[in-house]
């Protein structure tokens, strides 16, 4: 192999290890440094060193172990010189006495502890604002740069940098512990983590503004995060539910937008192009997710997605079952948006008049007043009922409420198609 060949292979292996192992490497390094910034620097150095070392010596059998060892060695070197550069933030609180630094490295590589759950629970601590939780998770757990996180959430890089710095400062100064929460606390803390992963997914799946309906990078990161949590917490039905939900929703990605970038409704999607592998995996997970009684939010949302995924046509969809699942979801996780989705399902199970009545019953919900989907769903039922003047008004309202270019084109097409 030529040198160019080997360095290209090494670069690919490093990129792969960055995506798969960053959280593991950083989480293990934070335990040594008890300082997030220093740990990040050491990990970045380790990945940079991997580029040259792996090109020269080949890719190690366990890239994550190699990177962790290098990053932790760097951390220890830095800590030895700590008196030179005084730290600006207090050390993170960890829940056990650390072995002497050199013992950490003397321990066999195979015994590096998996601290990813600590890392993500710290990033998603309820004492941090949710936007900070999301930013920290993408930056520390997924290894995105501040610029990448900023672009994902359509804010400027200095704004995002300030948000991340402020969150890190709070973790250190308020002593948010670097720890897996106690058994009693864990379920509510995992709920916060799942909310963050789900928000990353929905942000990627339906970009709020701009020309791209889907931001693939965010979708993939959220699936990676959900898979990581599933590996860490295999007994959690909530985690199974979230992973099922993101896989089943993502399975339709190839058919949500046509070649011209226009939004394609579920009704009109070419189901033969749905991702069978994701569907099979998602459906199997739904069974695990529904094992808790009563079933919870993500499990029920995934079960609804599974009904769609398993229907060969729109017409053969079991709408009665979907209405039943929405009824259960309204119990488990009441929200006006769920009530709206239920109303739409009622219309599909029992006809547009029933659907319109169900939507109109929700007009008092202030949260739905500014929600484009409510107006769009209403417009659709009015169109099906032949009440075109009212449908026109409802489409106009929906258009006023969405900035997503792809959704706008869809609504404009429907509006123009009215007789």
């Amino acid at each position, binding site marked *: 192999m030529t040198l160019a060949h080997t360095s290209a292979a090494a670069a690919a292996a490093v990129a792969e290890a960055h995506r798969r192992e960053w959280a593991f490497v950083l989480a293990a390094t934070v335990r040594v440094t008890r300082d997030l910034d220093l740990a990040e620097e050491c990990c970045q150095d380790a990945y940079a060193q991997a580029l040259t070392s792996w090109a020269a010596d080949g890719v190690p059998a366990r890239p994550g172990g190699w990177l962790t060892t290098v990053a932790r060695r760097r951390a220890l070197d830095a800590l030895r010189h700590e008196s030179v550069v005084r730290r600006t933030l*207090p050390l993170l*609180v960890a829940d056990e006495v650390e072995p002497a630094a050199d013992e950490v490295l003397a321990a066999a590589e195979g015994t590096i502890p998996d601290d990813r759950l600590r890392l993500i629970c710290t990033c998603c*601590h309820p*004492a941090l604002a949710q936007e900070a939780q999301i930013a920290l998770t993408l930056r520390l757990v997924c290894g995105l740069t501040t610029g990448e996180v900023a672009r994902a959430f359509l804010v400027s890089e200095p704004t995002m940098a300030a948000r991340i710095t402020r969150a890190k400062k709070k973790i250190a*100064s*308020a*002593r*948010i*512990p670097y*720890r897996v*929460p106690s058994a009693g*606390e864990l379920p509510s803390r995992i709920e916060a983590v799942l909310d963050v992963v789900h928000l990353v997914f929905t942000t990627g799946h339906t970009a709020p503004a701009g020309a791209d309906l889907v931001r693939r990078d965010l979708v993939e990161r959220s699936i990676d995060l959900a898979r990581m949590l599933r590996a860490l917490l295999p007994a959690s039905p909530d985690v199974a539910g979230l992973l099922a939900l993101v896989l089943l929703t993502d399975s339709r990605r190839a058919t949500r937008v046509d070649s011209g970038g226009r939004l394609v409704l579920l009704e009109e999607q070419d189901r033969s192009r749905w991702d069978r592998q994701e569907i099979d995996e998602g459906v199997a997970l739904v069974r695990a997710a529904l094992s808790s009684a009563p079933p919870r939010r993500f499990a029920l949302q995934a079960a609804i997605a599974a009904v769609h995924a398993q229907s060969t046509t729109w017409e053969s969809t079991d709408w009665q079952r979907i209405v039943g699942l929405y009824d259960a979801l309204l119990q488990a996780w009441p929200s006006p948006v769920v009530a709206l989705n239920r109303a739409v399902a009622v219309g599909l199970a029992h006809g547009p008049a029933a659907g319109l009545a169900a939507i109109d019953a929700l007009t008092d919900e202030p949260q739905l007043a500014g929600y484009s989907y409510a107006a769009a769903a209403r417009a659709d039922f009015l169109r099906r009922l032949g009440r075109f003047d009212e449908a026109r008004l409802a489409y106009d309202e929906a258009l006023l409420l969405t900035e997503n270019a792809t959704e706008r084109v869809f609504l404009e097409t429907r509006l123009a198609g009215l007789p």
Partner: protein
Amino acid sequence: MAQYLVLIYGDEKAQADSGPKVWEELHAGHVAFGHKYEHALAGGNALQDTSTATSIRKDGSGSFVVTDGPFAETKEALGGYYLIEAADLDEAIAVAKDVPMPNGGVEVRPVMVVDMDR
């Protein structure tokens, strides 16, 4: 170990309008809290209400402006505090959740450690 100040905020008017029974319950609640967290408490007091407050600000010319009333007018006013010792924020939050807070809530603030050698 670190110290946290737990600031107790509440609606003074709602508290003032409540009957003696509510006051007794509140008092009993704080006594019970004090026993339960004796090991963690480093201090604490209830404050007279904001109608007794006096605020002092420096004016531009180097003297002081003294005014009647709290520093900031809010619906939920500072009514008391506890100074607690806790290993970390999770422990502090667990203690703070047990503070009686009938008409409001509490704010948990880490105490800044000032390094005098610096």
